[in-house]
């Protein structure tokens, strides 16, 4: 069975541009969460989607947005890119809402975004 897949694996953008990152959850999983991991730090929660609705949002500016499609795949969009947006963006999926003690999260390998 395929795990969580993210595309692209690497991306280079310039300041002010827009970027779209994509995530396909494990088959049957209905929840997708997004995390940002800046070099040398632990991942930080950005969004959680369950059944195509936003269920939680971390402390990120409105430049960050996401959506979940009927097939449960998800996109993370970032507008007006800043140098500080350079990071590894991780997607995680779970059967139901993610991050609970009894709901295992499965992480993808991430998209490495570099903003120049």
């Amino acid at each position, binding site marked *: 069975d395929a*795990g*969580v897949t993210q595309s692209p694996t690497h991306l280079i953008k310039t300041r002010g541009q827009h970027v779209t990152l994509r995530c396909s959850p494990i088959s049957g999983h209905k929840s997708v*969460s997004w*995390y940002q991991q800046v070099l*040398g*730090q*632990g*991942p*930080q*929660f950005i969004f*959680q989607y*369950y059944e195509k609705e936003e*269920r*939680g949002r*971390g402390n990120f500016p409105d430049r960050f947005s996401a959506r979940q499609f009927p097939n449960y795949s998800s996109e993370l969009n970032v507008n007006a890119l800043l140098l500080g947006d350079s990071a590894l963006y*991780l997607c*995680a999926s779970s059967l139901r*809402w*993610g*991050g*609970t*003690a*009894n709901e*295992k*999260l*499965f*992480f*993808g*390998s*991430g998209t490495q975004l570099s903003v120049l």
Partner: protein
Amino acid sequence: AQSVTQLDSHVSVSEGTPVLLRCNYSSSYSPSLFWYVQHPNKGLQLLLKYTSAATLVKGINGFEAEFKKSETSFHLTKPSAHMSDAAEYFCVVISTFSGGYNKLIFGAGTRLAVHP
């Protein structure tokens, strides 16, 4: 608010010697705690979790962790390090936000180096 502090940013051990990665937590109630491992160019993998059952938790690959409420600690140990254990390790606590959904709060990480 829930948080975790990983006390060492880097730990270096020789192959075959014990591993100790330290984590302290802060929580206003009984926490759910996890250890995740991140190998280069791979997704985060769950090593073990504590959910208020047994205080000594056994995980994959010979790792275990002990929950000590009196010390607010959740240290990760392994009796004998293997070269393949070299990776980044994250201590994680669950934080609940409105609506009953949860997010993972990661520590800053400990990079484990294993020398022959």
